[in-house]
């Protein structure tokens, strides 16, 4: 994060230009010239980013505080209000969606972390076949979610699905996987874990291969067993990498949309209605701009807070680990 913030190429000449702002000619003007060139080059990018990313985000924040009506001349903001957020907090549907999203995020991220780390540990021991196995592992991750969701849809299909057939053969009765709340949620989690565990595995593996070998040798000399080595040596050193993986996963899982959109449309009932699905339905199906924007804004805010809290907790742990 830090490096990113100080990275923009225009920063050094910029600062220099500010420092030598009063002097005319000489190195100052050359620097200004360079800064100008820099701005000229980055200008189009900044404009596009501003127009397609920053402006829409800010506009949706503004919309979330308004009562909007669509007219022939476009959006008409009838009044500014905090009522959208009040409605959100009072809505049982929003609370259900929040609960589902949080529950879904916690379970899938945890499972992916455990399985991904296990996979990474195995991959690290592999010799010749590692490249092949890694390529195979990445297949689920490289599939577009809508496509993989369709595939899982076939597996879970209540009439001819593979999973349905399997359960029918083993249990003697065919469950309706996507038609019952608990199994629909579970099925969706499995589809997510199947798809994103490889991502976590690759990130953790990249951390594993960078670890300092000397520490492991020292641990061996000190007579530490494999189990203790993992918990006391490997894991603490992997924390920054795991932190990144978890952060990415929280961000993604919290915004889950495509899986329920393809698999269940939020059903059965409202059992798999995530915040993103609720926001989509409110905004684009019910055409309630204000409340829809409020759902989007609050979701973004919630995930931001979650990530910041996680980072803070993790950072202190990391430094503790380093101190030891």
């Amino acid at each position: 994060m830090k490096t990113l913030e100080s990275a923009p190429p225009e920063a050094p000449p910029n600062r220099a230009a500010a420092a030598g702002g009063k002097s005319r000619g000489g190195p100052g003007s050359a620097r200004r010239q360079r800064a100008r060139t820099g701005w000229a080059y980055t200008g189009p990018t900044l404009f596009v980013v501003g127009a397609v990313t920053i402006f829409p985000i800010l506009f949706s924040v503004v919309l979330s505080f308004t009562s909007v009506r669509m007219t022939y001349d476009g959006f008409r903001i009838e009044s500014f209000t905090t009522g959208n957020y009040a409605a959100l907090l009072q809505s049982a549907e929003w609370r259900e969606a929040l609960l589902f999203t949080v529950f879904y995020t916690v379970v899938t991220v945890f499972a992916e972390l455990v399985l991904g780390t296990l996979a990474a540990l195995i991959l690290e021991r592999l010799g010749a076949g590692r490249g092949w196995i890694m390529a195979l592992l990445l297949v689920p991750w490289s599939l577009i979610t809508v496509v993989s969701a369709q595939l899982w849809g076939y597996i879970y299909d209540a009439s001819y699905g593979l999973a349905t057939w399997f359960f029918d053969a083993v249990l003697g009765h065919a469950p309706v996987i996507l038609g019952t709340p608990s199994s629909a949620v579970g099925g969706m989690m499995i589809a997510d874990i199947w798809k994103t565990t490889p991502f976590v595995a690759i990130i953790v593996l990249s951390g594993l291969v960078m670890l300092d070998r000397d520490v492991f040798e020292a641990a061996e000399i000190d007579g530490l067993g494999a189990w203790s080595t993992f918990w006391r040596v490997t894991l603490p050193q992997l924390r920054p990498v795991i932190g990144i993986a978890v952060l990415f996963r929280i961000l993604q899982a919290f915004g889950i949309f495509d899986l329920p959109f393809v698999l269940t449309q939020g059903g059965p009932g409202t059992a798999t209605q995530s915040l993103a699905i609720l926001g989509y339905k409110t905004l684009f199906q019910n055409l309630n701009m204000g409340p829809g924007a409020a759902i989007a804004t609050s979701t973004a805010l919630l995930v931001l807070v979650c990530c910041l809290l996680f980072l803070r907790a993790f950072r202190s742990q990391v430094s503790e680990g380093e101190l030891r």
Partner: protein
Amino acid sequence: MTLSRRSLLAGTLAGAATTALAGCGSANTNPVAGQSTAIPEKPTTITWWCHRLTDRRNRDLAPLMIDAFERRHPTVKVRLLRSPSDTDTNRTTLTTQIASGSPTPDVYLGDVVWPGQFAHNSLALPLDQFVPKDYWKRYPAALIEACSGEGGVHAFPFFIDQSFLFYRRDLLDKHGLRVPRSWEELADSAARVRDSGDVASGFVWQGSVYEGLTVNFTEFLADAGGSVLGPDGSAVTVAGDAGERALTYLRDLVATGVSPSAVTTYIEQDSLDAFLNGSSLFLRNWAYAWAAANAEGAKTAGRVGVVPRPGFEGRDGAHSGLGGWSAFINPHTEKLGASLAFARFLAGDGGQEALLRESSYIPALSAALDSPLARRLNSPVIDNARKLELVPRPSSTPYYPKVSKALYTRANSAIGGSASVRASLSAMETEVRSALKGAVL
């Protein structure tokens, strides 16, 4: 030249605020003011947004309609824009496009439940100003009601869709059963044939979490003598005795295994597949299933019968959900005259005759159903079309999607058994009531 992050942010914020304020205060003026309503004399091209419709030979119907129109009006060319086949995606794409002020498409084919919401959100042109007062009388009243929203009628009816009960004639004959005259009889017959092992399930319909379940539920509700809203359109009456009878029946179908429990995930195609591959005795579906069931190569070809949906014992039957598609005009069209001509053609004598001749859709124009051509077709679907009592969904409210969602999510829970019938009905009632008030969440 020193453009800091802060000034960038301030600039963007100011931009956002200006846009927000610019939106304030402008009136909802007539978007087509000053445009001629006459058919243009100079060559004009308009665009028509239409999903894939099929003719009798399973070819695309839209080009045939366009040809028929262009022959009558040589100055107007119609360019076809293919819309997504999924209704909700179709609507989302359209609303985004029209709300942003795009003049394309000029004319779009839209679902019969859209007008209430589209009128409220200025996504369709009000049409009463362009046609004589008695123009709409030529269509079924329930259909025109469905085409209306704030400010009158907003769509020219193109075709209607009706639901029927399809049955396996061969299997009923084999077991010495008659075509059921009530839902209770249907459940008994279905259970008998299923127990014999001739079919895996008795009766399939659409119970997934989507608009189709709203249709199924409102049909059974009408069968039981109820309705979602009272006659004045504001009282919510869904949770009465009729609601309980309807929902209990549907739930029992699943609980007793007459319908497979997978029916709670079925949309039209799933139920049709189950019927076509021979695993179900009865099917509730739209009219198009008749052609599909008798298509060459279908297992069921020549073995299927179709009747109006029965009713509950002691009550009238023959209710059919009102479905169908209509031609809307984009309020931002820059070719009003040509667009009106095309939309009116689709709804008028010429278009309706072409529709009847080329496809198996049911014409919206009442007169077309009585025409000699209609009689010559000898189709049980067309012959029955006028006998059915159409059950509209409460779609004239601008908040219809929310109303429908309350119906289908709660009905789905009750049918699947994860909530009781009573609890589901009372939740339905609460949610429909708050939706009608405009409560958005």
